[in-house]
């Protein structure tokens, strides 16, 4: 026994069996116990396959088959016995479609439904056809059905990208169409007012055929031409507007739906390399500037705000500025789909440069295998380092939207994907498909899910538009039990005495690697007879401090195809890698504010201070009470604003209380030199000598708001002064 323990320890530390034990045979198809339940995925209901819904409202572009079926059941099946029957049939249909897709069948939901219906109905089961036709009528969406496989992420992203671009295009087109219409209206109005527009031929064309004979168009034309209005359309403006219309109509960025705008081929925006996308972007830049300029000028034109003397020079010299970074975001984004594994160092650098420059790229970098050999072959395993680096570097650029996720989780993250595609700036989506590697018959969905569970490829997003700080921008939200080092699952099995045992088991990196045949040599299955208490589960082992030679050996529970439980000792290299993986995960947690060390320190300090304060208060409460503070004297009751002393005006001079003038024209009609309006059309004394004292007094009398003060007579020789002075008395 002792030597067996030695051998186990030795294997753990060195990866070699001293006694030359045969490796676990593949025939057993051992699989980490936590994955044992998922041998046949097509019998489960889960997020996949997806339906890429056509013409769906925003947010509904990506649906899960199960979700769609559930909604169809809800709408088509009443809550009674009949409903139960329909429900059962629809669930069978779902399973049939799942099986078709798993067997490689593709196409739209409608065609798959038909195929599956044909098969199910051939059984001749009662009312099956009725159930299915009712459910089918209640189906809310149709579109390509897509299973979780190697091609899925690229298809999914292209579909989501298209949805986003379509709504962008719709908005842009609406603007452009409105501008074209308004510009055309200006041209048409200009023509109608022009000499040509008033020619007999035009006039004849504008009157319907029925009454043509009743008019003398020559005479009409002569009459109208004689009264040509001044404000006709100047030739330079007419030419400018005509050229705007032509630029707007021939743009290739947002083709009119269903037609090729003006016969020109619309640009393509999907690329398989960054370099190609960048080349296209640079080539199209002049056209973008021209279009943005045309839109800007057109906006000014339709508002009648284009001032040639000023704007001509502006557009000539600074016109490029019209296409600021914000302007660029109004144009379509470039979707670039690349395989992260194929990217060389230069490609990497190019990608980062393009993202850093804020170009409108939406990059999907797909990794199929994160357990491939480390690029630095120094015996380190360094799983997923390359693809993880990609996302980390992009986050460091700080203005890039970044999302990392396993393919299995993309459906859950669909909102975030759409947000990233809508983000006004570059975005990087790093996705692990689960479709590479050497995991045997394990479905890519499971491999991808296991990568995420094991923290080998965690899901996170970084959205610079969500706020100023990391707390608003960064999220780990979709990882299972993001608060823990490893997610924990329940596992139940039967022991030798046929007793049901259930326990909680953490899913670690070792479980994930345990699925991949390339790493089989890091595991040694131990016959049941050799099991002993020094063998402990990996998670337990991982939390132990290891000083000096280990006393325990880490082992992983495995389950064979026949359902029997096995245990394998895990090599030290893998354990080391699992620890590294945990460290990386913990840094992510800190970024997301989970167990954030700074926050925890601060909290501890504050708590201490608070407790000290509380103790001090408690002590003080026992001492003499401080006298209640006397209430502050109430503010003195509003002292009425000191009435300013009436401004002393020389009563000899005539004056008007202008701000009170009602612009009534009474005084100005008496003498419009003596009484003049200011820029607000309110009266004041203009030239007091421009009229007589009599006029001043009459104005004062006729001013209904009594604001004209005539002063003293200026010309002592004016006749009838005595009487006038008396009349002026009330107005002085």
């Amino acid at each position, binding site marked *: 026994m002792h030597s067996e323990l030695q051998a186990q320890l030795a294997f753990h530390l060195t990866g070699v069996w001293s006694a030359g034990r045969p490796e676990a045979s593949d025939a057993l198809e051992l699989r980490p116990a936590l994955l044992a339940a998922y041998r046949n995925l097509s019998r489960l209901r889960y997020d996949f396959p997806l339906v890429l819904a056509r013409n769906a409202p925003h947010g509904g572009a990506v649906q899960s088959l199960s979700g769609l079926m559930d909604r169809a059941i809800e709408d088509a099946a009443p809550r009674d016995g009949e409903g139960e029957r329909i429900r059962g049939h629809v669930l069978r249909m779902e399973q049939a479609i799942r099986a078709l897709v798993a067997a490689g069948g593709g196409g739209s939901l409608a065609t798959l439904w038909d195929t599956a219906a044909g098969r199910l109905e051939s059984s001749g089961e009662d009312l099956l056809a009725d159930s299915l036709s009712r459910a089918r009528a209640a189906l809310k969406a149709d579109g390509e059905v897509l299973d979780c496989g190697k091609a899925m992420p690229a298809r999914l992203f292209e579909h989501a990208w298209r949805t986003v671009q379509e709504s962008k295009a719709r908005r842009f087109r609406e603007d452009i169409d409105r501008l074209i219409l308004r510009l055309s209206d200006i041209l048409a109005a200009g023509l109608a007012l022009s000499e040509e527009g008033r020619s007999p031929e035009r006039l004849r064309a504008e009157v319907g055929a029925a009454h043509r004979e009743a008019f003398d168009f020559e005479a009409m034309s002569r009459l109208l031409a004689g009264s040509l209005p001044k404000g006709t359309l100047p030739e330079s403006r007419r030419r400018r507007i005509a050229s705007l219309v032509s630029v707007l109509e021939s743009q290739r960025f947002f083709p009119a739906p269903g037609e090729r705008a003006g016969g020109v081929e619309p640009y393509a925006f999907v690329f398989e390399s960054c370099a190609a996308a960048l080349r296209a972007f640079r080539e199209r830049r002049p056209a973008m500037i021209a279009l943005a300029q045309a839109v*800007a000028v057109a906006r000014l034109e339709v508002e009648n705000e284009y001032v040639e003397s000023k704007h001509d020079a502006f557009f000539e010299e600074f016109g490029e500025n019209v296409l600021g970074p*914000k*302007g660029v975001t109004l144009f379509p984004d470039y979707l670039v789909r690349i395989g992260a594994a194929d990217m060389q160092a230069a490609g990497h650098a190019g990608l980062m440069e393009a993202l850093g420059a804020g170009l409108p790229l939406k990059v999907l970098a797909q990794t199929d295998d994160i357990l491939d050999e480390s690029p630095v072959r120094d015996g380190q395993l360094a799983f997923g380092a390359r693809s993880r680096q990609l996302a980390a570097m992009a986050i460091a650029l700080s203005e890039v939207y970044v999302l990392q996720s396993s393919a299995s989780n993309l459906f859950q993250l669909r909102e975030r994907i759409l947000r990233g595609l809508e983000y006004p700036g570059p975005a990087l989506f790093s996705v692990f498909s689960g479709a590479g590697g050497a995991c045997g018959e394990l479905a890519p969905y499971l491999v991808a899910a296991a990568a995420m569970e094991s923290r080998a490829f965690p899901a996170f997003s970084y959205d610079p538009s969500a706020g100023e700080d990391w707390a608003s921008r960064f999220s780990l939200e979709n990882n299972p039990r993001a608060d823990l080092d490893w997610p924990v699952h329940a596992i139940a099995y039967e022991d030798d005495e046929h007793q049901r045992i259930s326990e909680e088991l953490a899913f670690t990196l070792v479980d994930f690697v345990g699925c991949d045949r390339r790493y089989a040599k890091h595991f040694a299955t131990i016959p049941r007879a050799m099991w002993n208490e020094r063998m402990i589960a990996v998670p337990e082992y991982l939390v132990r401090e290891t000083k000096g030679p280990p006393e325990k050996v880490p082992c992983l529970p495995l389950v064979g195809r026949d359902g029997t439980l096995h245990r394998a000792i895990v090599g030290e290299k893998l354990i080391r890698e699992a620890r590294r993986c945990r460290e990386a995960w913990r840094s992510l947690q800190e970024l997301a504010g989970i167990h954030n060390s700074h926050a925890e320190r601060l909290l501890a300090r504050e708590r201490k201070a608070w407790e000290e304060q509380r103790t001090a208060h408690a002590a003080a409460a026992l001492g003499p009470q401080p006298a209640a503070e006397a209430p502050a004297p109430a503010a003195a009751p509003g002292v009425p604003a000191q*009435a300013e002393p009436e401004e002393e005006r020389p009563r000899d001079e005539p004056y008007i209380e202008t*701000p*009170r003038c*009602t612009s009534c*024209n009474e005084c100005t009609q008496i003498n419009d030199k003596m009484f003049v309006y200011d820029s607000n059309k309110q009266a004041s004394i203009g030239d007091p000598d421009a009229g007589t004292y009599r006029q001043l007094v009459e104005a004062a009398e006729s001013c209904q*708001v009594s604001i004209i003060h005539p002063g003293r007579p200026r010309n002592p020789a004016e006749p009838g002064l005595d009487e006038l002075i008396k009349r002026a008395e009330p107005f002085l």
Partner: protein
Amino acid sequence: MTITAPECLLRLYEEHPDLEDYQGGAPRWCAGCGDNAILAAVQRLCRDEALRPEKTAFISGIGCSSRFPHYMKTYGFHGIHGRALPVAEGVRMARPDLHVFVSTGDGDCCSIGAGHWIHAVRYNMNMTVFLHDNHVYGLTKKQASPTSPRGLRTNTTPRGAYLEALNPLTVTLGVQNASFVAQAVDWIPEILYSIVSAAFHHKGFSFVRILQRCPKFLPDLFDPWLHDPQKVLVLTHDNGLQLSPGLAKVHKNRREHDPADLDRAREIASGADPIPVGILYRNPGVPCYEDLRRSGKLRTGAFVRAGLEAELDKFTIWPQGHA
């Protein structure tokens, strides 16, 4: 608009219009007519807001006051008696980019146009409406109007008007969806301007009743109020009217009134002496009909033609055999 050409660069060239830029023909109103004061206040508003003449439309019915559009150098429509509001609604619907103003008299609005008035309040379309209330038909030379005070002698009521006057403020405040109701008097220009401006800035149907002197036919009617500031109750509030220190010295009869308070507004509106002046009610939350009904569809020539054809087809008598 989604295109964001750097606005600041493009709109560098602001214009600073003068009052003259909005002055159309010389007013033919009688000297001393309160309509002159309203015209001056509105022209000041246009200048201060730098409204583009081609983006502004003045609509009216028939009456002395309805000559208003002629005196504005903007778009205008001197309409038919009582129908200023439906015309203005049509303009708003077809050209939501225009600033729409309506001038209507007490005969025009409260008599022949009363039906339109009630529904226009309820439709709450974004426009600024001035009720030039001189308590009489001016243009047709002194007949009683619905707002003529009881006992007023006119050509149609030589023994004095028999009925109590209709109160346009309480009527408007009683209609569903009322969103802005204010009262001004033509003889206090500062307050008139402030209210005209507040009405313009309110999005919705802004109803401003302006007590307007008709010196030609009712020369003394408003004299008691004209000569005694105490007979004008000025409604002030942080969200309403505020007086300049100079005016505050003259108008000591003031009351704080929150324009959000509909019940209080109705109570104040029902008083006629002293005359309440200020913003009685304002509710920016009432939706505008044109917003509820905007289709977003571009009205291209083809679209309009197709709509017209479809409409006319309903009345067309087709030869036999036509589908």
